[in-house]
């Protein structure tokens, strides 16, 4: 299947055409959190070499002659870097590198439109992001594309490059999970779907009917590299709604019959290609580089412009020049140490990358971590699975737990412990979008200007980050809706880096997904000031003896008037047979009338439907089973309404907690919690994944009201969860679910 190496001399071709490449040195997102605030991602060092060098090297190796590097965010830095790099002196390669700067671009589509406006493209060209690490010969793909366009498939506009990677591959980026269909013989792309966490992937049946040979791929990873026909920038110009390559691909596929344009694909089988798209893949790819999968792009053969020699020792230990290893210090497997670094005695380092000119004190333990240049770590520190940018200073006796990110020039310590996933930066966070960040409640909000500077100094949390710290908490921006299908995931790279060891219970890759989601929801819950499930405000210490915890402290306070009105609306909707979409409108208007947050609406909805069921069954006199039966019919009838509010896992979790609160309040329903779940599950309102995520949540600290409350509900829901987990192993087709129902109830 792979494009087999045809050793045809390309000389004849070269003389006719100049092979061009466009490098988009920006990814238009903030996956790297605080790290990319000061330095563009393309310049981040990956194993001590700026990322863009990997990309340019891959292009040079593919005999590309002209490269346009398109930079937006902090583009000056990239231009400056390339100006002084080996790419410009002409000695190391015949490739000319031109940097294009644009501040107005907010997407790949914009960049291509600009390129079209400048009409820089003359032939088929390679479009690539500035964070690709690859040792593939792209010219073969270009050749393949050329043969296709000159041969029978003239309408092919693009050949997408994919890398073979089984599900669970460490370099597979969770955000980029996708599912696609390829036509067997022609390698044509038939269908493309980003697969986030849905359990089913519907494809139009016509694809199966019309094509005799279709290959279903879930084993691919998008390299974000493609070979485009010269028409592609024009197509972008014609369609202003094409923002990303993905939206372009989708657009082409949908309009295939009208426009006649086709997209083909090429799969890399035995070479390396991966994209540094977030911290998790940064981690995975760094390790691949150290383990020499990317040869010749390995530390000892491929350096940055500074022509320093790197020595390669056994067990993948690489040392630069002038490294000072004190007595008693040890370097474990897979370690890269940059030139000029001093490592103190009794210090152990393993599976890590240390930049140049770092100072590491005595008795320090560094594991799975990445230190950029000029990092200073003082004595007795413990760094685990963390990323430390240049000029970070970690004072003595500091423990960095998994997933810490310390951005440029941050100082922490002495004698503090940073929890999992702490992201710190040396300056207070600025709002990039001034009016957007309402959720920060002024605490982290740092209006520009010197006047507030002192105030901010005060807010520097010396208690958590040490007496001499210069550190501010970084909060990820909640991205606005303009990027349609981008879903912001929190950086929980440390989980995937270690889940193989830590995850004893599940073992399957799904569980790491769940953990991640769980992490998300926990953090969201913590960050949102309004959604206070916390117990601190309630002074009463009434512990319900039957429950073993204080119920009042845990329940989400719901506006009683709103709730009453909501139930009334539902009753009216039921009696007047109001259409589902109108009901949604009514509920929305209620939300505005009572100014309740959306969380609360979602939280109340399941309960209000149960109340509706109660009312239909003649209110209080009704027996629990009959109410449940009514609830079942109602929820299947209004499932579209419920689904409208509970689309993603977060809102589903809210809904589940709503049901939880309901059963805590209504004693007679406590034993019925499994049925309630089952009903909503059958109505396709709640997905299996989110129920499991909810179930696996563990509110901290253990022993608190919240934890007790959760474990109480967990116990109630146990039967349903067990059923779910056994049913999960069955095929998820509907007819079987029905078979299984008997067991479940």
């Amino acid at each position, binding site marked *: 299947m792979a494009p087999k190496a045809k050793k045809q001399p390309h000389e004849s071709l070269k003389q006719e055409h100049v092979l061009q490449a466009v490098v988009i040195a920006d990814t238009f997102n903030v996956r790297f959190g605080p790290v990319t605030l000061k330095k563009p991602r393309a310049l981040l060092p990956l194993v001590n070499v700026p990322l863009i060098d990997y990309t340019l090297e891959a292009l040079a190796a593919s005999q590309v002659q002209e490269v346009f590097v398109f930079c937006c965010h902090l583009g000056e830095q990239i231009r400056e870097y390339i100006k002084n790099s080996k790419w410009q002196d002409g000695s190391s390669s015949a490739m000319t590198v031109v940097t294009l700067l644009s501040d107005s671009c907010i997407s790949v589509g914009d960049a291509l439109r600009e390129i079209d406006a400048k009409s820089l493209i003359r032939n088929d060209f390679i479009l690539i992001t500035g964070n690709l690490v690859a040792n593939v010969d792209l010219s073969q793909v270009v050749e393949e594309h050329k043969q296709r366009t000159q041969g029978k498939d003239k309408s092919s506009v693009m050949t997408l490059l994919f890398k073979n990677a*089984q*599900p*669970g591959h460490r370099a597979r980026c969770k955000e980029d999970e996708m*599912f696609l269909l390829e036509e*067997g013989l022609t390698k044509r792309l038939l269908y493309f779907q980003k*697969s986030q966490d*849905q*359990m*089913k*992937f*519907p*494809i*139009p*049946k*016509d694809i*199966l*009917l019309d*094509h*005799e*040979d*279709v*290959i*279903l*791929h*879930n*084993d691919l990873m998008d390299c974000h590299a493609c070979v485009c026909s010269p028409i592609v920038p024009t197509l972008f110009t014609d369609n202003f709604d094409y923002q990303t390559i993905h939206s372009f691909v989708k657009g082409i596929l949908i309009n295939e019959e009208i426009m006649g344009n086709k997209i083909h694909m090429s799969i890399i089988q035995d070479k390396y290609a991966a994209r540094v798209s977030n911290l998790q893949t940064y981690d995975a790819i760094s390790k691949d580089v150290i383990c020499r999968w990317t040869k010749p792009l390995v530390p000892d053969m491929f350096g940055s412009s500074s022509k320093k020699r790197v020595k390669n020792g056994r067990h993948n230990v690489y040392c630069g020049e002038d490294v000072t290893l004190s007595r008693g210090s040890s370097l474990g497997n897979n370690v890269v140490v940059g030139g000029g670094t001093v490592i103190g005695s009794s210090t152990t380092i393993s599976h890590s990358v240390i930049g140049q000119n770092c100072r590491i004190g005595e008795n320090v333990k560094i594991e799975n971590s990445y230190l950029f240049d000029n990092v200073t770590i003082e004595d007795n520190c413990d760094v685990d699975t963390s990323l430390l940018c240049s000029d970070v200073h970690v004072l003595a006796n500091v423990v960095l737990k998994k997933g810490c990110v310390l951005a440029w020039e941050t100082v922490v310590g002495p004698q503090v412990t940073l929890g999992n996933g702490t992201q710190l930066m040396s300056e207070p966070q600025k709002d990039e979008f001034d009016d957007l960040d309402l959720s920060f409640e002024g605490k982290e909000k740092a209006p520009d200007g010197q006047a507030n500077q002192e105030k901010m100094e005060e807010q520097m949390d010396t208690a958590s980050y040490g007496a001499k710290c210069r550190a501010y908490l970084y909060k990820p921006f909640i991205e606005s809706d303009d990027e349609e299908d981008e879903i912001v995931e929190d950086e929980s790279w440390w989980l995937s880096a270690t889940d193989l060891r830590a995850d004893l219970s599940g*073992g399957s*890759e799904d569980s790491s997904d769940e953990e991640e989601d769980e992490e998300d929801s926990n953090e969201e819950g913590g960050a949102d000031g309004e959604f206070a499930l916390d117990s601190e405000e309630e002074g009463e210490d009434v512990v319900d003896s039957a429950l073993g915890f204080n119920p009042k402290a845990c329940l989400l306070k719901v506006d009683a008037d709103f709730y009453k009105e909501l139930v009334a609306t539902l009753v009216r909707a039921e009696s007047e047979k109001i259409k589902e979409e109108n009901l949604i409108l009514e509920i929305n208007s209620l939300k505005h009338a009572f100014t309740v947050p959306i969380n609360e609406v979602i939280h109340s909805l399941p309960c209000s439907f149960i109340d509706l069921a109660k009312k239909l069954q003649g209110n209080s006199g009704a027996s629990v089973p009959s109410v449940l039966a009514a609830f079942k019919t109602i929820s299947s009838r209004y499932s579209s309404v419920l689904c409208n509010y509970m689309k993603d896992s977060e809102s589903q979790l809210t809904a589940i907690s709503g049901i939880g609160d309901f059963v805590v309040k209504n004693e007679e329903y406590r034993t019925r919690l499994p049925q309630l779940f089952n009903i909503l599950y059958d109505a396709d309102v709640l997905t299996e994944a989110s129920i499991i995520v909810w179930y696996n949540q563990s509110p901290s600290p253990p022993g608190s009201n919240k934890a007790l409350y959760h474990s109480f509900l967990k116990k109630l829901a146990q039967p349903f969860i067990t059923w779910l987990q*056994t049913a*999960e*192993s*069955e*095929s*998820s*087709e509907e007819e079987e679910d029905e078979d299984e129902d*008997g*067991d479940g109830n």
Partner: protein
Amino acid sequence: MTNPGDSTAVIMAAGMGSRMTDLNTECPKALLPVGRYPMIYYPIRTLEKSGFAEIIIITRQSCQAQFASALTPGMVPVKAKLEFLGISDQEDAGTADSLRLIADKVKTNALVVSCDLITDGDLLDLMSVHRKNDSSLTVMLSQLPTAITADTVVPGFKAKQKNNLGEKISIGFEYSNVEHVVYWKAQVDMEDELVAFSKKFLNRFPCARIQSSWTDCHVYLIRDFIIKYLKDKGELSSLQGELVPLVVKKQMSTFHPAKLQEEAGMDSPNGDLKLDKKKDLVDYAGETCNKLSHTIKSLSLTSPNFGSNEDAAQKDLIRCYAYRQTSGFCVRTNTIAAYAEASKQMPRLTSQFFLPKQTAFQNVPENTIIKPKSQVGADSMLGENVEIGEKVSIKKSVLGKFCRVGDGVKITNSVIMDDVSISQ
């Protein structure tokens, strides 16, 4: 006299021929003549060639005698020991019902062949696929002979013949092992606009190749536990329509030994019968391999799940593979079109089906009476005692026994059965 691989060979001849009703009002589908012999002779011959010595033929009770007389050694050169079993004449009996009848006779595998299969494929190849992969169910697939799909001129009503599309099945094969069948869906069953694949499926088989160019030859090699399951579960009636998709789908299921024990513990020792309704196919599969074989599997280097976690062996209990016949001839004479095609192909294929000593078989038997100026093409086949008049030309056609063809008749692309008179 034993069969290869201790398999039980079964020929399903109880079909009503619902897709060729015009032809089989008088005699059962399986006894319709194709070339010189009844249709059912060909699967018997194929089985014989693969070394099967005992063959069970399942017919309808009413036709049993007819079969027995048609298949006496005098009529057809059959060597294998044939055993006839009749099923009741009820309308709704399907292939799975036929199989239930012989459930007790199956020791290890049952090789189920349809009576309308005419192929030169070697069933031993199918059996090696089965054994190589330790398969639970192996099906034989074949590329459609292009002649049928494309431009055969078909006797009968045009509209009726278009049901070929309805027979198309989308079959998914694992990309790295194309013999492994992972997806099976008849295209007529795709009612919705969307066909959904579950995430579990995609994670289990990350790269599947779905092809619709294969025809199911209705040759199945079935493990005993599936037949046991079939016997206990009453509702399945068709092998192709229900059992095969079910087995393919159940490859995803996991066997829970604990669950089974628990259930068994609740009932008395012979509680198995009561539990049958609930028992899933995978449980049957689980029973066949004990703990030891599980350990062997997880430790074996050749096992597909070597080195993976311990549960893996429990997941791979049901396996469905396919023998994909790519060359040669394979046709199911279940429609008039296919029947006509098969009959016409017969002259070319005779050598495949007849014993070596008969290879010098003549398409025109000696006792044919042909009057002058008539031509019988080499691509035609005549039955015994055919009389042909003057200036007759016969091309690409098959004539049955005792036919009389008048003067000046032209026959092309036709199948003419026994005792037909065509006058001038």
